[in-house]
């Protein structure tokens, strides 16, 4: 299966373009845009970990190392398409237009955190593993029924492929030719369980065979590979040719969450090694250096711009109006039931009595 599903690369670890046929399309502007979006995602992730360590946000789920897989795929869909993230996919959602402020609000336990800006079709992050694959399929199926060319892009990890909903999602999408792109980020671990204990199969891509879904295995740290192959899958879906499964092989440097200790189950020196070998940002840096287009001043100005953006988002998060208990009662049903109304009145009267 490893031979049948080789890892597709466009730019290798040394920053060399190995698929010359895309050279003409690969402008410096595009490369710089890729780099900037990944840098923005990485800086946001690092800031969130810092904020958690300072006690300013709650437990946080980091993605550092997976920027290419998320950013590259998010750039392959368009306004009007649908994105279904899991809880680790903020690099994807922020690239697709989710606000940094709301991203921070999510991690301070605010409902608003799951809500995308108006006009952006992003679902709240799915917490139960693999459940979102079915929503993506259902939404895409609806688009097909409405005769649009809109598609769903859904994110999930390697562990998710053990869940029934992964298989049900692929099967339904295949049977109904739903325009869905299943974007798996195989980062090697489902919390502490390594891929070889998660599955006996050598690849995740091969799981698409059982459903007759075109599947591909790509280097998830190569943003060009992610972008181009996701775009191909998106275009297939738009043409009415049904779903695609993409296995993006990547690595998370850090823990599963800020509450987890990876030193208990893996050798963290692997993460240190990968920072100097397979890192998605380093790869583009090497590419640009090979092209003599690396520019330290450009980097510094971008870092400054992103720092300002993140700081603004943090201020907005801090200044955001206090959470209102009414949100809890008002959005369970379109019209609250009498039990909810009664509980709201009781709660508020007790609260008023205490003031």
């Amino acid at each position, binding site marked *: 299966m490893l031979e049948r599903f080789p890892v597709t690369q466009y730019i290798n670890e040394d920053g060399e373009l190995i698929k010359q046929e895309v050279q003409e399309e690969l402008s410096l502007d595009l490369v710089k845009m890729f780099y900037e979006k990944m840098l923005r995602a990485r800086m946001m992730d690092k800031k969130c970990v810092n904020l958690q360590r300072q006690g300013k946000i709650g437990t946080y789920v980091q993605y550092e190392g997976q920027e290419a897989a998320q950013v590259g795929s998010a750039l392959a869909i368009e306004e009007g398409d649908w994105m279904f993230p899991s809880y680790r996919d903020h690099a994807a959602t922020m690239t697709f237009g989710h606000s940094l402020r709301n991203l921070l609000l999510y991690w301070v336990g605010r*409902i608003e955190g799951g*809500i995308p800006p108006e006009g952006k079709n992003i679902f709240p992050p799915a917490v139960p593993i693999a459940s979102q694959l*079915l929503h993506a399929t*259902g939404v895409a199926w609806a688009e097909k*029924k409405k005769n649009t060319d809109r598609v769903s892009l859904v994110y999930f990890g390697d562990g998710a492929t053990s869940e029934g909903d992964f298989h*049900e*999602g692929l099967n339904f999408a295949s049977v109904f030719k739903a325009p869905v792109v299943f974007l798996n980020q195989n980062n090697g671990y489902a919390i502490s369980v390594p891929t070889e204990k998660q599955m006996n199969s050598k690849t995740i891509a091969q799981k698409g065979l059982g459903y007759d879904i075109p599947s591909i295995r790509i280097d998830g740290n190569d943003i060009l590979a992610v972008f181009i192959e996701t775009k191909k899958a998106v275009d297939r879906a738009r043409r009415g040719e049904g779903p695609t499964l993409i296995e993006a092989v990547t690595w998370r440097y850090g823990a599963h969450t800020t509450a987890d200790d990876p030193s208990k189950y893996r050798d963290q020196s692997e993460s240190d090694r990968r920072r100097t070998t397979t890192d998605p940002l380093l790869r583009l840096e090497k590419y640009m250096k090979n092209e003599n287009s690396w520019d330290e001043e450009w980097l510094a100005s971008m870092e400054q711009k992103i720092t300002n953006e993140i700081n603004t988002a943090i201020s907005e998060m801090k200044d955001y109006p206090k959470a209102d208990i009414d949100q809890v009662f008002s959005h369970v049903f379109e019209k609250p039931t009498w039990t909810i109304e009664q509980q709201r009145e009781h709660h508020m009267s007790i609260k008023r009595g205490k003031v």
Partner: protein
Amino acid sequence: MTTAVQVKKLTMVQAVTDAMRTMLEEDESVLVLGEDVGQNGGVFRATDGLFEQFGEERVIDTPLAESGIVGTSIGLAVNGFRPIAEMQFLGFIYPAFNQLMTHATRMRQRSMGRYTVPMVIRAPYGAGVKAPEIHSDSVEALFTHIPGLKVVIPSNAYDAKGLLIASIEDPDPVLFLEPMRCYRSSRTEVPDEKYSIELGKASYVKEGSDVTVMTWGAMVPDTVKAVEKFEKEHNATCDVIDLRTLYPLDKDTIAESVKKTGRVVIIHEAPSAGGVNGDIISVINDTSFFYLKAPIQKVTGFDTPVPVYSLEQEYLPSSEKIISALNTTLSY
């Protein structure tokens, strides 16, 4: 000039079909999906003829996967459709529990109304039709406990049509449970035209003054028979209330009747522990406790799995048990 309303005598399962046909005709966004609902017309024939009338794009045979059916229905509902998803039996809904619990019922709140899930899940349920094991489960209380889900159970054809139409038109997820014992056991007059019955409203099956008897689903006709026998043997009359919606309960009707009679018997075939009887007693506690003249009696199934069918009649609340409970409350 008035137009005469056309009325037909239908079985409950025919009324269920009639409700879906009415809504499929009226609203292009309504879909029916599930296993065997298309060509085969459903294992109980509840979707009989709909595939022929509306085609495979509206009446959809799905793969055999309950989580898949509910999970994709969530996506369809969020994106402009009104899916009616069929579980072949309620006892098969457990694989879909996660989708119901973690997504269908939370989507509105998690998105503060941006995404809503106007879907209905229909499921035949209950013992007494000699079905194999698991098929007869009566676990409605599992679902009344899920915030964000309405739970509706008809007991006759007229109610089935009106309640199902109301469920389909409801902007939030509704679990619509169809007691198998009632599917073909009687016929009721059902108007051809569209009508709906407000969710959350109970109905008086009969009125009396000495005891309030509350039940739902297939226990309604059984209860009426037992009550009639009891009334003949005693100089007493009973309110028999079909609750019809188990979440939210109709607290006003419950309170009104209890205030009148002061005596209560609750009957359901589901296990007692954690059952809906507790919610009803809680409503009485809050609304009409001081009117009670006797402890509330309950007649329920056992806190055991529903037995295989050689023993299911022993499990179901019998006429003797119902009459015994009525005697107990009246003797206080």
